[in-house]
C-alpha cells in the first residue's frame, strides 16, 4: 500500500505546552481512497486535520502529497496545490448570497482574482449556477447565507471546496449538527462527487454509521497516536477498537 500512496504522513508530532496532541503519526493514503479518521475526543483527529490543511505547523514530521511537500505551508498555498478543506463548523461568507459564495470560489479557482473587470464575474454565471444545481442549492441562489439552514451551509461549503478542483479533500466532521436525513444526503453527495472526480478524501467523523457507509479504509486514533488501521470490517471486528471507541457490546 505504501508504494502506491499519494499522501504520506511520516512521524508527525505536535504538542501544546506539555500536552502531546500528536505523537509520531504515520499515514499512507492511496489515490482516490476515502479514508475515515475516527477516535474518541482528544484523540488528535482535529489537530491532524489542522496540520494537514496548514492551520497549524507540526513540531516534527513530514507531509507529502503527490510528490509535493505540504508541511509548514500556509492554508492558501495548500489550496493552490489542490488541497481542499471544509471545516467542522461550516465556514462560508455569511453576508453574501449563496450565489456570491459560489462565485467567490470560482473567482479564486479562476486565477484572476485581482482583475478589475466585472465582466469576468458575469461570464462565470453559468458554471456557478451549474455547480449550485449539482449540490441542490440553485433554488437558494439569491438567499443571504446567514438566512439558510445549517445543512444547506454545509452543502454550500462543500460545493465551494469542489469548485477549486481539489485532488485531496479534508473534511472535519462533515455531518456535525445535521439531522439523520440531511446527514445521509450530504454524505451521498460527497461520495458521488469524490468518486466521479477521483478525489482522495480524508474525513474525521463521529457518526459510526456514516463512517462505515463511506470509508474504504479507517484509521483509529487515541491519545495522539494511530491506534489501529484497516478495512471497515477489520475495524468493526477489532476488539480493542470496540473497547476504546465503539463501546464493548
Amino acid at each position, binding site marked *: 500500500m505504501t508504494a502506491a500512496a499519494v499522501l504520506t504522513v511520516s512521524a508527525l508530532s505536535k504538542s501544546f505546552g506539555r500536552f502531546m496532541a500528536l505523537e509520531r503519526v504515520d499515514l499512507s493514503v492511496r489515490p482516490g481512497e476515502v479514508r475515515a479518521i475516527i477516535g474518541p475526543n482528544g484523540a488528535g483527529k482535529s489537530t491532524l486535520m489542522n496540520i494537514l*490543511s496548514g*492551520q497549524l505547523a507540526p513540531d516534527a514530521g513530514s507531509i507529502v502529497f503527490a510528490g509535493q511537500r505540504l508541511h509548514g505551508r*500556509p*492554508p*492558501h498555498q495548500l*489550496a*493552490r496545490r489542490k488541497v*481542499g*478543506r471544509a*471545516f467542522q463548523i461550516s*465556514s*462560508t*461568507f*455569511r*453576508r*453574501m*448570497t449563496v*450565489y*456570491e459564495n459560489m*462565485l*467567490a*470560489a470560482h*473567482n*479564486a*479557482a*479562476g486565477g*484572476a*482574482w*485581482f*482583475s*478589475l*473587470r*466585472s465582466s*469576468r*464575474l458575469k461570464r462565470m*454565471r453559468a458554471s456557478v*449556477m451549474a455547480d449550485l444545481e449539482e449540490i441542490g442549492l440553485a433554488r437558494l*441562489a*439569491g*438567499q*443571504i447565507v446567514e438566512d439558510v439552514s445549517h445543512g444547506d451551509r454545509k452543502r454550500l*461549503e462543500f460545493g*465551494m*471546496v469542489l469548485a*477549486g478542483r481539489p485532488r485531496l479533500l479534508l473534511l472535519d466532521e462533515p455531518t456535525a449538527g445535521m439531522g439523520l436525513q440531511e446527514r445521509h444526503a450530504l454524505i451521498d453527495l460527497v461520495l458521488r462527487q469524490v468518486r466521479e472526480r477521483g478525489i482522495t478524501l480524508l474525513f474525521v467523523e463521529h457518526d459510526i454509521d456514516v463512517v462505515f457507509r463511506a470509508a474504504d479504509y479507517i484509521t483509529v486514533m487515541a491519545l495522539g497516536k494511530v491506534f489501529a488501521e484497516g478495512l471497515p470490517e477489520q475495524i468493526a471486528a477489532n476488539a480493542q477498537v470496540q473497547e476504546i471507541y465503539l463501546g464493548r457490546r
Partner: protein
Amino acid sequence: MTPPERQTAASGRDDPRVRWFPVAAVALAAAIALLAGPPLVVFALIEVMVFALFATALNLVLSYSGMVSFGHAVYFGIAVYGMALTITRLGWPLWAGMLAGPVTSAVFALVFGAFCVQLTAIYAAMLTLACSEVTFAVIFQWFELTRGETGISGFVPPMLGLAPGVYGLIVLAVVSASILALWRIVYSPLGLTIRAVGQNPARAAALGHSRRTVQLIAFVISGFFSGVAGTLFGAFHGNVFPDYLGTLITVNGLVMVLLGGLYNFAAGIYGAVLFKILDNLLAHYFQYWQVAIGVILMGVILVSPRGIGGAIQWLARRLPGAQR
C-alpha cells in the same frame, strides 16, 4: 428564474447594480447648487464631497477588507504634503503636484500597510494608530521640511485661483469619478476577493487567497483615494498643517462610515452629508455641538445598527412595488 444579482437586491443587502437615475439626479442637483448657490453653501458642499470620498475610501477598509484603521488621516494629509513639497521644493507644475499627492498616499499606505497586515483585529488597528502618530510627530517636528506647526501655505492659490463654483465642479467631477472607480473595484473580481477575505479569512485562505496580500491591496487602494480627497482639500484651502493628518480627521471619517452604515457602499456619502450638516448647523447654535453629534451617533446606531444606509434599504423594501 430571477437573476442572482436581482435576488441580492431584493434581499435588501448591498446591491452591486448602480441606480443611475438617482445618482445622476444628485450629481445634477449638486452641480446646480455649486453654480447658483451662495459661497457658504458652495464651500460646505465642497467639504461634503471631499469627506464623502475620504469616508468611502475608509469604508473599503472597514466594511469590505475586514480591517479597522485608526490612522487613515495620514493618507489624507500626507497627500497634501506630497503636493505641497513637490511644487515648492522640486518645482513641479501644479498638475504634477496634484498627481503626486495621491501617489504619496499610496506609497505610505503600502509601507504602513505592509506592517499592519502582519497583525489582525485590534492589534492591527493599534498599529495603524501608531503609524499615524509617528507620521504626525515627524511632520510636526521636521521644521526644515514641513515648517512644523506653521504648515505650508501658498503652494497653490485657494481653489486653484478659480471661482468657488468652478472649483466645486472640478471637485464634483473628481469625487464622482473616484467613487465610481471604488464602486467598480468593490464589484470586480478583486472586490469580491477583498469582501471574501474581510468576511471570513479562514475560508478565503482555504480557497487560495493570502489574507495579507489581499488586505494590503485594499489598504493601498483606500490610501490612494484618501489621498485624492486630501489633495482636493489641500487645493481648496491652499495650505497644509499637521492637523490634516490628525486623529480628529480619522475619527470624523470613522463616525461618517458608522452613521452611513457599515457594509453599505454608500455609507461614506450618507455619513459625510449628515455629519457635515450637523457639523455646520449645530456649531452655530450649540456650544457643545460635538456632544450632540455623539448623542446623535449613539441614537442612529441604537435605532438602526446598519446606519442611514440600512434605514434607507429598510424603507425601500417597504415601498409599494418593492421586490420582497
